[in-house]
């Protein structure tokens, strides 16, 4: 009995001492920003620009004096697009690196694998992945910067409606992005009173989608075609679409909103429309657009530093990092609870992706209008709406 009391007291003292040491060390210690990204592997086109963006802006913020008078330290791991290693790295970030906030998770799979861990450990987590499941239902510690695929579907279908289209064919990839996009499109179509008359899929490794497109073309009443997917698949769909001589209005998702897609699809992409970040058309934005300056600066700084084309995916990381910094500044500390509360109450943050208005019900904070509808004209993006 007596022994256990002593043992407990000893434990308490040890914990208290450790706590004190940590407190005194904290003032000089940098703020740790943890990240796990798909820098290599199949989703590297997401993770690579995201990491470059984080590295570059952490450096820049540190040169300008850091946050709350402390330097930032970026601790990052490469999950290779693999959900189980994402989970391992998230656990390492929380347990052994003891980061103050996590900004990462390139894919929905990687993000969702880490969600239970951050919820349990109570660490603020800003995800860079798209699917609607990440913030709906709202999870206390999880936020995200990209628009959801549901918003993309809403934006595309609204544009179709404006053109008088009510029946369309859908072709989607079977990967996480494509299948989630498909589900959302079907739901949104029903809500908006539109009809999906053909519903085809292709797998990420397919090299020819002519058969699926032929089926859509032969379906009665098709007025437009929407392709939801990312990677090289949509570029092949676009080429096959042109080869088949299909002339219905053609839509792609935000998953391929990049210049490299234009390169791959070539002249076949002429006339297609998609929802995209304003980052693709920084100079066509009207002067009174609040995002114009942010977008132009990010593009210029990224391209000057890395000598490669800026991508929308890197912008998600930019917004994630800036939101984290802003939340810590508003909280005045790196206390997880305070930072989380500050994040949840951020209003009117003008980012590259859109204007964020967070709330306890909305941990994404963007509206569908943050997507711009672009059309490919003469091999270039043209702002339509």
């Amino acid at each position, binding site marked *: 009995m007596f022994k256990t009391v002593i043992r407990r007291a000893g434990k308490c003292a040890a914990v208290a001492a450790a706590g004190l040491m940590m407190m005194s060390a904290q003032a000089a210690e940098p703020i740790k920003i943890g990240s796990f990204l798909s820098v290599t592997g199949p989703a590297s086109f997401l993770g*690579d620009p995201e990491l470059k963006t984080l590295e570059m802006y952490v450096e820049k913020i540190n040169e300008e004096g850091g946050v709350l008078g402390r330097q930032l330290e970026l601790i990052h791991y490469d999950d290779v697009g693999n959900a189980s290693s994402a989970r391992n790295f998230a656990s390492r970030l929380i347990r052994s690196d003891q980061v103050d906030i996590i900004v990462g998770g390139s894919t929905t799979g990687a993000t969702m694998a880490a969600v239970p861990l951050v919820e349990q450990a109570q660490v603020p987590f800003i995800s860079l992945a798209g699917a609607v499941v990440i913030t709906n239902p709202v999870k206390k510690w999880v936020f995200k910067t990209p628009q959801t695929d549901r918003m993309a579907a809403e934006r595309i279908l609204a544009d179709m409606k404006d053109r008088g289209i009510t029946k369309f064919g859908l072709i989607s990839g079977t990967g996480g992005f494509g299948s989630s996009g498909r589900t959302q499109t079907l739901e949104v179509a029903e809500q908006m009173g539109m009809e999906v008359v053909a519903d085809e899929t292709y797998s990420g490794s*397919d*090299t020819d989608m*002519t*058969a*699926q497109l032929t*089926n859509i073309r032969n379906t009665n009443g098709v007025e437009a075609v929407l392709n939801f997917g990312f990677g090289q698949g949509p570029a*092949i769909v676009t080429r096959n679409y042109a080869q088949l001589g299909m002339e219905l209005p053609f839509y792609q998702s935000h998953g391929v909103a990049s210049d490299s897609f234009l390169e*791959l699809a070539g002249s076949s992409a002429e006339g297609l429309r998609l929802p995209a970040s304003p980052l693709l058309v920084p100079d066509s934005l009207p002067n009174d657009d609040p995002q114009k300056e942010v977008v132009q600066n990010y593009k210029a700084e990224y391209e000057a530093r890395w000598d490669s084309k800026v991508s929308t995916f890197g912008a998600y990381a930019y917004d994630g990092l800036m939101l984290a910094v802003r939340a810590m500044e508003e909280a005045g500390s790196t206390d997880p609870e305070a930072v989380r509360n500050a994040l949840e109450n951020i209003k009117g943050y003008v980012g590259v992706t859109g204007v964020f208005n967070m709330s306890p019900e909305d941990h994404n904070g963007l509206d569908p209008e943050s997507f711009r509808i672009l059309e490919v004209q003469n091999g270039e993006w043209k702002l339509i709406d």
Partner: protein
Amino acid sequence: MLAEFLQYLFTGITIGATYALIALGFTLIYNASHVINFAQGEFLMIGGMATVSLTAMGVPMILAVVLAVILAGILGVALQRFAIAPAKQADVVTLIIITIGASIFIRGIAQVVWGKEYHVMQNFSTDQPIQVFGAVLNSQSLWVLGIGAILVVGLVLFFTKTLIGKAILATSMNKEAARLVGIRTQMVLMLAFMVSALLGSVAGIVVAPITFTSYDIGIILGLKGFVAAAIGGLGSGVGAVVGGLSLGIVEAMAAGYISSDYKDAVAFSMILLVLFFMPRGLFGAKVVERV
């Protein structure tokens, strides 16, 4: 109705021809060494990527193609010399694992050198598709089929008419006996890897305008090629061609007539069926147990 069928058929034959060319590469090395070379897909990738990057540097297309094929050939020889040969008398299984390692290594280098993006290659001739009874045929498909046919005929002649070809065949039948009659089996193995690399790279180049190319294109196509080779019966040239074409056509027909969701399932069920009833594949050699 006919137009639909033709469309699926064209799609299937084009992809199938690619699978067939890759399957032939597997067959060649399997014949010479009983090794399944899982780096076969990488030869494909080297062909496509080297051509794209050379043309981007301003080298004329034809020269770029020739250089890319030569590069792949050198790589094939190097693979045999530096990865397979040092393992000497190792098990076939060990050698197969070595080829998997080599393929990861080659892919890693390619990723560093050429980056991770997908690249486009221009069609060899016009971008304008050809109309046949209401179906459309990509002009590049004709190139794939034509060059595929030439390669197959060339291989048949190589194996039946040339001394080197016969030496490879002899080695595949009985390595010890071949060595006794003075065939340098190590040399033959090296040749088999080289020819297989050349074949793979040519396949990679002709399909690149259709599939695009990237550092990891070899994984997908290589695996499908292996499946085609297994259906046809590993080691049979005719089997590789038939296996490749039928796999491509079944995939396209399944996507068109059944559902694109079940496309791969149908293809894989076909493999299961074939291998269940004919464990050596459609044209596999009959194995006689020697006692």
